[in-house]
C-alpha cells in the first residue's frame, strides 16, 4: 500500500504559562485505502492529531506529508486548496448550512472548487443517492432527522472524491441503530472508492470493527494494531 500520510515527530504544545503537550513526538504512517480508528480517553490528543492531519491546525514542531506534500510548509491558500481537494470532514455535529437544502449542502465543496453549478448538482445528487437520501434532496436540515443529516454530511464529505476522509466522533449524537447504519455506509464507500478513512472514536466496539486501531494516551501512540 502506498503511503498516503506520513507523520514525523509531530509535537503540538498549547498555552504560554501552563504548557499542555497535546501531541508529543508522534510518528505514524497511514496507507491509501486504509480504514482505521484512533481511540483514546478524553484529552489524549486524538482530536488534536485529527486536526493536524486535517490541515485545520499547525504543529509546534515536526512534519506531516499528505501524498508527498509537506503541508506544514504550505501557504494559507495552498492549505485551503488541499483541504478542499484532498480531505473530507465529518464531525459529531453535522454542521450543515441551515440556510441551504440537502443537495445544495452536498454541492458546496464542489462549488468552492470552482465546478460549474449544473455539473455539481449532478455529482451531488448521485452522492445523495449513494447514502440513500435522493428523495430528500430538497429538504433543509431542520426538516431531516439527526441520522439523515449525518448522512447528508457524509455525502458532502465525499462529494469532491477526497483521498482522506476524517470522522471525529461522528456517531456521538446518534442511537446505536443509526450508528451501525452509518458504519456500514462508510465501510461500503471505503470498499467502493478506495479512500482512506480515519475515524476518531471512544466507542471500543466500533473501533474493533475497523482494520487498524491506533490507541493514543497523553499525546503519544501507545498501541498500533497496523
Amino acid at each position, binding site marked *: 500500500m502506498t503511503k498516503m500520510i506520513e507523520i514525523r515527530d509531530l509535537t503540538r504544545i498549547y498555552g504560554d504559562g501552563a504548557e499542555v503537550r497535546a501531541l508529543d513526538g508522534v510518528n505514524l504512517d497511514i496507507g491509501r485505502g486504509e480504514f482505521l480508528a484512533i481511540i483514546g480517553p478524553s484529552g489524549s490528543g486524538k482530536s488534536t492529531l485529527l486536526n493536524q492531519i486535517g490541515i485545520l491546525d499547525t504543529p509546534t514542531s515536526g512534519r506531516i506529508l499528505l501524498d508527498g506534500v509537506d503541508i506544514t510548509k504550505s501557504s*494559507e491558500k495552498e492549505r*485551503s486548496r488541499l*483541504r478542499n481537494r484532498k480531505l473530507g*470532514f465529518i464531525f459529531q455535529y453535522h*454542521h450543515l*448550512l441551515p440556510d441551504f437544502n440537502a443537495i445544495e449542502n452536498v454541492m458546496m465543496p464542489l462549488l468552492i472548487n470552482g465546478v460549474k453549478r449544473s455539473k455539481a448538482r449532478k455529482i451531488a445528487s448521485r452522492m445523495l443517492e449513494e447514502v440513500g437520501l435522493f428523495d430528500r434532496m430538497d429538504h433543509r436540515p431542520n426538516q431531516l432527522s439527526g441520522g439523515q443529516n449525518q448522512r447528508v454530511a457524509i455525502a458532502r464529505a465525499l462529494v469532491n472524491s477526497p483521498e482522506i476522509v476524517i470522522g471525529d466522533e461522528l456517531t456521538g449524537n446518534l442511537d446505536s441503530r443509526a450508528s451501525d447504519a452509518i458504519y456500514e455506509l462508510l465501510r461500503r464507500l471505503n470498499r467502493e472508492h478506495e479512500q482512506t478513512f480515519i475515524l476518531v472514536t471512544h466507542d471500543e466496539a466500533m473501533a474493533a470493527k475497523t482494520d487498524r486501531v491506533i490507541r493514543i494516551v497523553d499525546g503519544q501512540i501507545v498501541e498500533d494494531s497496523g
Partner: protein
Amino acid sequence: MFEMNIAIRHIRSRQRQTIFSVIAVALAVAIITISMSMLSGFTSYIVDATVENQPHVTVSPEEDEDYIYLYHGLLNYIRRQECVIAASPRYQGDCALQYQHNVEGVVLYGINPGDETKILNVEKDIVAGDFMSLTGPGNRIIMGSKLAENLEAEIGDAVTAKFPGSKPTDFTVTGIIRTGTQADETLAYANLGQVQGFYDKGDIITGIGVRVLDIYAADTLAEKIDYETGYDATSWMEGNREILDLIDQQAGFAYIFYLLIFAISGFGIANILIMVVMDKVGEIGMLMAMGTSRRSILLIFLFEACILGMMGVIIGSVLGYVSSVMLASYTIPVPPEMYFGLDHLPFLITPKNFIIAGVFAMAINIIAGAYPARRASKMDPVEAIHEV
C-alpha cells in the same frame, strides 16, 4: 459568484435580521433626505428672497440727510461703472391709502417702470394688470395683493393717497402684485414723477437701486460708491449678513446631525451583523474545513452588509422622496412673521442630495460590516467547529 450566493441566501433566510437592518438604514436615509430637501428649499428661498427681491446695491442719502438731492449726476456716475447693468431712482415714502371706508398704511415707491424692471424682476410677481401700465396717463398705482384685499379695492378702482402736508390725491389701481412676503400688505408702486408731485419736495429721491453683473462683486461696488461719492451704499450681502451666516450655521449643524444619525444607524447595523456572525460560527468553521479561504469568508459578510445597505438606501430614498413631495404640496398655515414670511414649508428635491445621502449610507454600511466580517474571517476553524 460563490460568496455572493451565500450572502444572498443568508439574507433571504434570516428575515428578521434583514428587515431590522434594512429599516435602520432606510429610516436614516429617509430622515436625512427629507431634512436635506427642506434645508435646500429653505436656503434657496432665502437666497432668492434676498438676491432677487432687492437690488444688489442700494444707494441711500448721506449720513444726516433724508434725501438725495442732485441725483441725475449720481445716476450717470453709477451707470458708467463697468459692472453695473442698470440703476433705478426711487422715492420711498409712507402714506395712507383710502378706498371707500377702508384705510391702510402703505409704503409708497415712486419709480420709473422702465428703470425698475431693469434692476429687479418685478413683473414676475404681477398677478393682475401690468407693471408697465404705470407709464400710462393719469395717476396710476400698483398694490400688494393683501393690501388690495384689505382695502377691498380692485383694478379700475380709484384709491386716495393721504399724507400730512400733502394734498389728498387719487390713484387708479392698474395692477396687483404678490411677492409672497409680508410686503404684500403694505407695498405700492407709482410713477416717480407723480409720487414726487404728491410729496411736493421737488425733483429729489430717497435712494437708487443698482443691479450688477456678478452678485458676489456687489460688495466691492458698494464700497467704491461710498468712498467716491460720500453717499451711503450697501450691498445685498451686507444687508443680509446675519441671515446668510445663520444659514451657513444651520447647514453646519444639520450636517453634524446627519453624521450622528448615520453613526447611530451604523452601530445598529454592526450590532445586527455581529449577531449574524456569532450565530454562524459553526457554519464558518465548516466552510473553512471545506476549503473556503479566509478571504472568501470576509467577502461573504461584506457582501451581506453591502446588499442590506443597498436595500436600505433604495427604500429610504423612495420613502424620503415621497415624503418630501407630500410635505411640499401641503400648505401650512404658519403666520408669515414667524417664518421669514413663508406660508408653506419650502422643499427643494435635488438628485444631488439623494446621491450624497446614498453614498454616505453605503459607506457607513461597509464600515459597520467590516468589523464583523473581519472577525468571521479570523476565526480558528477548530474552535469554531467545536463551539456548537
